[in-house]
């Protein structure tokens, strides 16, 4: 516990206030009928040592990447995090500060925000970026809300099965209370969203597309953008930041708004959060951007400096007319992404993307040679691909792999009942050839347990 006041302090403080006790102070504020008559039951307080013991005992009950090889992805990836990221981000000057309301004593954070925004525009090929949103899912939804705001007469949102299912579930939740219709198109056998071209019409506000998509497959964003723009709709692309070391940028493909999960950029998996919602857009949409934005200006002495700007978009000024309700955001994760991208540079990004792609190709070719498995989609992929277990025993497969020290992929059954015999497999730069071989062999040799196979 972290208290300061000694009994003597309390005595002096109460005397200065002119009350007898803290209880009397509280009684002057909180009416008696609603005051608690007992202590909260939260267990006994733990000392630092006891807390450490409790945490370590619980930690032992988790399988983690410390002990297991990770082939799981689906929007959260085991990318390598250089030591510099942790060393800098664990400085108290960063992580124990808050929103830079006082620019004079927040130039560190503000300059990092400005650098982050610039890096995201360089990465996406779009004009402006905000300083962060919560995560990839809520960023995708904020993108859709922006588009609906641009054209109030257009209420149709076209999306596809290739967009992360949890992002689409989040979208469904958000649109339940507002007037909008979400149309979701199926994937073709290649694993791409070619059918979304037919779904775009004159009432469409936007197309929400993911490329590379949830299954790792490459969408033809250029073609979809062209069709959307002809119909007067905006294009929101969910992208993978790492892929941009090999693939064209969202801005170059015609996306108007680009959103991403920024966990890949130097942030730990942490069972789902905190993560980093990335959002960039075209210049003409800047006043509709949600969230904080740092901008450049000069101080009274003429020095270049940075401040929070365009705040008339935000809730503390505009209240119910704000572009979003977001207040606290993910600055610390954006700092980590900024450090990460500074360390990588263009060549490091290319190398990371290339490692991911080459290793994924190798894993894909290797597993496709095993009789038990087939590829779910025939089209090209980036760092992820789905396989079908002809024996239909994904649960048994997973259990077996975990025993061998491997998290073999993400079972797709919870998202698509018809794919309950499939695993989504991600291979990052962190995996070695020997580890990939071990993964292939483990899956190939897994016993088929329990129920009858589909084959």
């Amino acid at each position: 516990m972290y208290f300061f006041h000694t009994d003597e302090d309390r005595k002096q403080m109460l005397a200065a206030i002119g009350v007898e006790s803290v209880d009397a102070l509280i009684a002057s504020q909180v009416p008696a009928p609603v005051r608690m008559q007992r202590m909260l039951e939260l267990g006994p307080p733990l000392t630092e040592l006891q807390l450490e013991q409790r945490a370590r005992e619980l930690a032992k009950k988790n399988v983690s990447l410390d002990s297991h090889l990770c082939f799981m992805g689906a929007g959260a990836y085991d990318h390598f995090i250089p030591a510099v990221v942790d060393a800098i981000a664990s400085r108290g000057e960063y992580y124990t500060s808050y929103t830079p309301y006082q620019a004079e004593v927040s130039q560190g954070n503000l300059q990092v925000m400005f650098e982050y925004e610039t890096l995201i525009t360089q990465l996406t090929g779009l004009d402006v970026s905000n300083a962060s949103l919560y995560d990839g899912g809520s960023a995708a939804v904020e993108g859709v809300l922006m588009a609906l705001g641009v054209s109030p007469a257009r209420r149709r949102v076209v999306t596809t099965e290739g967009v992360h299912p949890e992002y689409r579930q989040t979208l469904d939740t958000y649109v339940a209370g507002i007037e909008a219709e979400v149309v979701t198109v199926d994937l073709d056998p290649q694993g791409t969203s070619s059918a979304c071209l037919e779904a775009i019409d004159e009432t469409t506000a936007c197309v929400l597309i993911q490329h590379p998509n949830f299954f790792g497959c490459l969408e033809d964003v250029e073609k979809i953008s062209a069709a959307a723009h002809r119909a007067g709709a905006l294009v929101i692309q969910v992208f993978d930041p790492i892929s941009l070391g090999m693939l064209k940028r969202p801005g170059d493909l015609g996306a108007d708004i680009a959103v991403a999960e920024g966990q890949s950029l130097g942030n730990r998996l942490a069972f789902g959060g905190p993560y980093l919602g990335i959002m960039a857009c075209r210049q003409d949409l800047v006043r509709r951007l949600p969230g904080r934005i740092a901008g450049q200006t000069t101080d009274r002495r003429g020095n270049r400096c940075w401040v929070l700007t365009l705040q008339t978009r935000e809730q503390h000024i505009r209240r119910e007319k704000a572009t979003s309700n977001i207040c606290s955001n993910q600055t610390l994760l954006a700092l980590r992404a900024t450090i990460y991208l500074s360390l990588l540079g263009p060549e490091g990004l290319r190398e990371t993307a290339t490692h991911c792609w080459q290793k994924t190709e190798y894993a894909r070719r290797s597993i496709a040679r095993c009789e038990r498995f087939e590829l779910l989609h025939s089209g090209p992929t980036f760092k992820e691909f789905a396989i079908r277990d002809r024996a239909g025993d994904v649960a048994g497969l997973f259990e077996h792999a975990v025993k061998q020290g491997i998290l073999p992929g993400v079972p797709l059954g919870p998202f698509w009942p018809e794919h309950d015999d499939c695993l989504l497999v991600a291979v990052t730069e962190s995996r070695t050839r020997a580890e990939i071989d071990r993964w292939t062999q483990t899956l190939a040799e897994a016993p088929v347990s329990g129920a009858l196979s589909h084959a």
Partner: protein
Amino acid sequence: MRNKQHTQLLFELSRPGRRAHRLGAVDVPSADPATALPANALATSLPPLPELAEGDVVRHFTNLSTLNMSVDTHFYPLGSCTMKYNPKRNERLASLPAMADVHPLQPGETIQGMLEILCELQSLLAEISGLPGVSLQPAAGAHGELTALMVAAAYFRSRGEDRPVVLTADSAHGTNPASAAMAGLETKTVKSDSRGLVDLQDLRRQLDEKTAVFMLTNPNTLGLFDSQIEEITAAVHSAGGLVYLDGANMNAILGITRPGDFGADLMHYNPHKTFSGPHGGGGPGAGPICVRDFLAPFLPSPIVVKRGSQYVLDHDRPQSIGRVRSFFGNVGVLLRAYFYIRSHGGEGLRRVSEDAVLSANYLRSRVKHILDVPHGDSCMHEFVASAARLKKEKGLTAMDLAKRLLDYGFHAPTVYFPLIVPEAVMAEPTETESKETLDAFAEALFRITDESSETVHQAPHSTAISRPDDVRAARQPIVRWSEPS
């Protein structure tokens, strides 16, 4: 002492050919992207990111960090933000590989320790709030507000009631009306009375069969506990509406009173405030919500439940509003909250609030000789003073005071909020500051009012920059670096 070379922008420090991170050769047989991938997908050039050496990166960000004030370095009495000490032990424990290197889609059997903590945290938050239904999913306080309003809307839909209106107090955080708008609800504002409390008559006048929720901050943003709380909640309930508690100020009432006991039906916590998760320069936070049992079926999915000896993620909740984000939640922040609560226990948490209240009242008793405190004779964990008289008499504004305090080595209080107090100065000292620090702060404030107006108007004098031109930043926005032409 200041290193101006390395605090240039990353893009200005960049030199073609510098590198930090390297992976080396790929160790698998190579495929050819040009034949394996469609030509129109492949980039023809790389994103123009800066090129830096590792030493550049470390020196750049280390020097930049020294331009920030933070809780680790300074007293940070930013009202409404609860800038308390962030325990180092929580940082270490939340960073254990078996906590921080866990994939979000790992099956329940492989994360029993994690689920046990999260399940226990749900119970702890329920006990502290007096509201039994808990969702840990929302990513921030504002996100919790939105989620809770969606829960309320789903509840009314399930009863076939058309209640499109949310009432918010005029002293409320801006997130309240913004969240209501995002949930597709209409906002109306309830006035404060001359005491700074909810104007009960105005509330009663506006409550009707269209009212879904009254959003209340209690203690409110003036740091006052609303003494009419029982009448307020009874009035809302008798109109068929629900009471939402904005939990931003929970640091004032831990173990003293519970939202569920004073009539709130839904609430959010800000664990990055109340339970010491660090503020991260603006985030991450988290925004867990607690609700009454009849609202629990509508909470987002999944929630953690214990079945026999196993902890599981329960997705099978047919009335749930669904997801409000991807994956489980801001787990790193939630773990820190868990460690914080377990470090204190019930008695410890009550002392947190008692000391926070004591410190705020002590500081108030010292400041009131310098600035007017227009509302109340005492306060809870924070108070709002006004520089209006100082402005009239000496031409010094709340902003001037805030800026000059920086020279004295103090972060400024929140200024110009809440909107109902002119020249508002909102100070929240928290329980993790000493009497000496509070004395020094009051002393500085006193000395500032004695200084020449010119000195104060031009403050701060000791910081890297002073009085940036906000108007220019907004009128001619430069929100990214561009290559000089």
